[in-house]
């Protein structure tokens, strides 16, 4: 029982909570922007997988971690462009397109992985990984230094992205118009705003962020690629957007909290504590449903989310 309690505030657990939260935060921020423009992209899980592979294979073969990140991001944007063509130009049902994107992305990534690494031995190919970016002085602070100031540079970037994104969405003409597109595309169209263009941009930003999330999983965390590398993180990111009621502050908090839950359950497993960790794994989704109920009256869900826009339809 002591283990169960001690793990709650263990420094290692807290540090890994922030690490685990990073890809969740990246993907959720991207998805939030996409949804603000009215597009529900259910394909993030697949996008993350493809990007993780893209980063991994380039990092390994070209022997450059930075090139790895760039190609992971490129793969994410490419896949989201495919989504954009489907849902914004051809106006396919968004749920169907998103699910198809997942199947396609995961299948494609695994196929390419096998094509590049045909050997099936027990030895998994490994790439380099980024080192932790320890911030001078600050990282020497006991406990806090290890938890907060010895993370990857991408973790800092993800958190730094939050105020930047908030300002863009709430203080710029572009942000105002992006949010408007998700609420009433017809109104925007009648004001001369290019609805399709906006949705392309929003999806590409979502792809970029999911791409970073994928890169984080392969070339920051593990140096490995495997089919289940995303392990449901794309779905949790979707849940976080709902849990966070489409607001950046709450999405940040939600990502950290869900990251913490995951880190906690991992450490319990590692300690061999006999607690059903599946329950903790399911908790994010249960909490999301609870948040939906609580936010029912004050939901910030974009009014036109998931509905294809046709000019002049009755």
């Amino acid at each position: 029982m002591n283990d169960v309690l001690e793990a709650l505030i263990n420094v290692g657990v807290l540090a890994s909570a922030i690490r685990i939260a990073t890809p969740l935060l990246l993907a959720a921020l991207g998805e939030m922007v996409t949804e603000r423009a009215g597009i529900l992209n259910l394909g993030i899980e697949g996008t993350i997988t493809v990007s993780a592979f893209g980063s991994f294979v380039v990092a390994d073969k070209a022997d450059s971690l930075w090139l790895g990140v760039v190609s992971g991001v490129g793969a994410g944007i490419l896949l989201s462009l495919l989504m954009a063509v489907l849902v914004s130009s051809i106006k396919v049902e968004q749920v169907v397109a998103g699910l198809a994107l997942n199947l396609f992305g995961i299948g494609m990534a695994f196929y390419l992985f096998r094509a590049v690494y045909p050997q099936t031995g027990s030895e998994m190919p490994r790439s380099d990984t980024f080192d932790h970016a320890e911030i001078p002085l600050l990282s020497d602070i006991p406990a806090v230094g290890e938890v907060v100031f010895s993370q990857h540079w991408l973790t800092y970037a993800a958190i730094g992205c939050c105020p930047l994104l908030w300002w863009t969405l709430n203080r710029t003409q572009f942000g105002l118009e992006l949010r408007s597109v998700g609420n009433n595309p017809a109104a925007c169209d009648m004001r001369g705003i290019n609805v399709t263009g906006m949705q392309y941009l929003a999806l590409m930003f979502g792809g970029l962020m999911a791409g970073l999330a994928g890169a984080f999983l392969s070339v920051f965390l593990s140096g490995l690629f495997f089919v289940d590398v995303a392990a449901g993180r794309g779905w949790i990111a979707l849940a976080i957007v709902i849990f966070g009621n489409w607001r950046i502050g709450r999405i940040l908090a939600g990502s950290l909290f869900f990251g913490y839950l995951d880190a906690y359950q991992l450490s319990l497993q590692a300690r061999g504590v006999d607690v059903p960790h599946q329950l903790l794994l399911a908790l994010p989704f249960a909490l999301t449903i609870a948040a939906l109920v609580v936010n029912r009256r004050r939901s910030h869900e974009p009014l036109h989310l998931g509905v294809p826009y046709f000019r002049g339809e009755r």
Partner: protein
Amino acid sequence: MNGPGADSVLLQARGVTKRFPGVVANDDITLEVHRARVHCLLGENGAGKSTLADLFYGVHEPDEGVVELRGEPIHMVSPRDAIAAGIGMVRQHFELVTPMSVLENVVIGTRGEAKVDLRAARERLGELCDLYGVEMDLDTPVGDLAVGQQQWVEILKALYLGCEVLILDEPTAVLTPEGIERLFATLRRMASEGLTIVLITHKLHEVMEISDDVTVLRRGRVVRTSLTSEVTMADLTRMMVGRDVDLAIDVAETSRGDLVLDVSGLDVATESGRGSLKQVSLQVHEREILGIAGVSGNGQDALFDVLVGMSSADGGRILVDAKDVAELSPADRLEIGIASVPADRIHQGLMMDFRISENLILGRQRSGRYRRRGWLNQTSIAKFADESVTDFEIAAPSPAHVTRVLSGGNLQKIVMARELAGQPRLLIVHQPTRGLDIGATEYVRRRLVEERDRGAAILLISEDLDELLNLSSRIAVMFDGRIVGEVDRRDATIDRIGMWMAGVSGVPGEALA
């Protein structure tokens, strides 16, 4: 008033044709709109007015012909081009981002700095409001405003962009008589200050009241353009429908029978508080039409929903033939003879992708008449469908056809045929002729009177005052969820009802004193 000279032509259509699958919406339209004048486009529903407006605003591109501005052809592929050229438009259905504030709605689509300069925008908007005497809190979410206010937001949006031509599509549909007066006064003032106004309407008296020029459209073609001062309402009617019509059908007085619907102290709360019902009481008898007047959004939707069983009351009683029906489901209410025609026939009345015959029995599929040993009885359904199509003059290739392809008038006839089939004891109709052309309107009204004469009790909720004054035995007026006045048809005047609709209770003379 004299006609304008040729040099004052601002906006012009030359031989414009626009086709949609199966229809020619605009057929070789040529017309000139002169600077600083109010130009009405008059026509029935489906005459092509809104399509023409959309062509002027770049929503659609003409298949043939050109639109010219200041004598130069302009090629528009999107409203962006129209806005850049100085054309503004307020559509019939508002295009507002409801969760956002008035200010934000106005700023959307303005090409400004990267950073939104809300302060400068607020200042300019304030000046516009002052100039035209509009009172509005710029920080209120647009969704919280009344419909009349929302319309001013739309107008402000167009003016803010500095338009030279302002097109308004059926702007009076959502306004009280008083609101219409105010709008028209403002429009006149705008025209006198040099703004050119194109006003789309199907209401003759509006044309006579406000316009300098009028173009009548029928079936996608221009019938004639004239100076309003040179035509009469009778001329316009003839041009509009191609024949003489008197929409006011002959409604004989009847003596009412027993009490059928008895509603007392009805309360229905809504989440936002808008459109709720407060202590509503009303009675409808056999062989009687009770008309409910009111500007939309004053509780009519809640009244309809609670009477047909789509929502439940928070207080009060609903008695039908002295039996409490409050706990009955919509299906149960149908069973005891309560039929209803919803305002939104496309979303609430019909399954657009079903066959016509299927829509004709929607909700009756369990009745023994259409069911045999658990299966649908196709023979009796087909027979009923054939009868209905003939009886109600539904213009359709066959009852097996998909419903979506039909016009609004025919859609409404399907709903009417279905609801009247069981000879209902109580009929609740909501906006039965909204959006219908004159022929269909006449038909629907005649059918309602026939039902009354058969013995049905009818509750007619409508926003069309002419309709209510024509058909109703009594008229009650709703404002802010209450019945604020009730009057016998013989004593009803537009003025009196208009005052009630605006929320002034009592008799007009007293209220003003």
